[in-house]
């Protein structure tokens, strides 16, 4: 157990400067918007920047977490460690998921504060619903991107030539099949349930149905992609 925890801590520590920078940038931006924004401009909407920005940046960071091991030869130590190989992608994934959790929390908090200060008169939504929607969107897409990236990296380091090409092929190949299967899959999964959201926009009561199909489909795809990545690490990945 201790070795696994030690490796997890290393994965977390490795990019903490970037995490720190992103946290500080988010806090500074949010404070700035809270202090200088006004309800009649769109400026406060910039609060969405950290939220969407980190959603895009973190998958790249995860990819870098893998690639840097091979580029700096640290894979020689990593793969020689007396642990089952599947821990390698799993722990990197989990460490960056923690980053995502932290950045999600701060950016959504900032967003909530901005909403309360500037837009609560126009749109009224319960706090729970606000956070629920934010989390659902953020984490389903994060998990999907992370899983895709992990599979791409696992594929890349299962070969010695044409790594970039293979990574790209995995990306587009997955996208292709995912898009093709999405509609029927989501429709089928929607049967599992839905959540009804009520909010007021400019005084009018609106109900919005959030169907579980899409997030479930994303979770399933994520699990499959991660599973394949783990399989590759156990059977093909090498220095």
């Amino acid at each position, binding site marked *: 157990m*201790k*070795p696994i*925890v*030690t490796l997890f801590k*290393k994965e977390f520590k*490795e990019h903490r400067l970037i995490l720190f920078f992103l946290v500080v940038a988010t806090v500074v931006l949010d404070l700035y918007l809270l202090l200088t924004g006004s309800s009649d401009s769109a400026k406060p909407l910039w609060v969405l920047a950290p939220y969407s920005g980190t959603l895009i940046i973190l998958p790249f960071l995860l990819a870098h977490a893998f690639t840097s091991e091979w580029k*700096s*030869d*640290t*894979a*020689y*130590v990593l*793969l*020689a*460690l*007396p*642990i*089952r190989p599947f821990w390698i992608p799993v722990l990197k994934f989990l460490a960056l998921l923690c980053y995502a959790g932290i950045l999600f929390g701060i950016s959504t908090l900032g967003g909530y504060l901005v909403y309360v200060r500037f837009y609560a008169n126009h749109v009224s939504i319960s706090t729970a619903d606000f956070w629920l929607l934010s989390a659902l969107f953020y984490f389903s897409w994060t998990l999907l991107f992370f899983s895709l990236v992990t599979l791409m990296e696992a594929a890349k380091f299962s070969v*010695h*030539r044409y790594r970039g090409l293979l990574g790209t092929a995995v990306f587009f190949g997955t996208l292709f099949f995912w898009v093709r299967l999405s509609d029927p899959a989501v429709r089928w999964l929607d049967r599992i349930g839905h959540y009804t959201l009520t909010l007021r926009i400019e005084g009018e009561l609106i109900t919005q149905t959030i169907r579980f199909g899409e997030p479930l489909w994303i979770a399933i795809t994520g699990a499959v992609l991660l599973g394949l990545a783990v399989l590759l690490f156990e059977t*093909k990945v*090498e*220095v």
Partner: protein
Amino acid sequence: MIIEVEGLWKRYPGTWALRDLSFTAKKGRVLGILGENGSGKSTLFRILAGITRPTRGKVRIFGTPITPTVKARIAYLPEVQPYYPWMTVRELLEFLAPFYPGWDPQKALNLVDFMQLPLEKKVGDLSKGQKGRLKVVVAFSWPSEIVLMDEPLGGIDPPSRKRILGALFSEFRYGEQTILISTHLVSEVEEFIEDVIYLKDGSIVLSGHADQLREERGKSLSELFEEVAT
């Protein structure tokens, strides 16, 4: 036989790095794997360390294929600098400690002292000689059963080489510990190697006990290396 390699082949795009390699290593002895750059030494070591997979053939260490349990008994010093450059020497030792049973933090510190390494300096900022010495500290901070040393002296300044060889000679637990050492600077380890394998283009061209070869051929391992390499 603590290491058994049978019919080992390894292919990389465009070339075969190892061709039908078969040999065994006896426990408690020092086996020299001698060969030019590109002869397949490093590939062999990577396979024995479990970080590269054979294309064909069998490798058994301690009688089994290479599993995490086996890896916990092997210390691997690759030819490259494999440690995280952002960690300090201290952080690196603390990081590796939980993975290897019997890791002795005090011993590690003593070796760091002997090797004159700055504990608080980042690994990435160390000189080439210091990096080479650090690898040896890592290898002997715990009682591994097998030590795989891939070119431990390559490209390293003479004072560092002396320190590394000094540590090697005093730390080697003869009879219990098995060392595989690869080098193309044969004269430096002439007196340390007991069994020897000469590799060329991925195959074994000569092997045997060092003293026996000396007796039979009246040549040093170094001279035999010159012969074999051409």
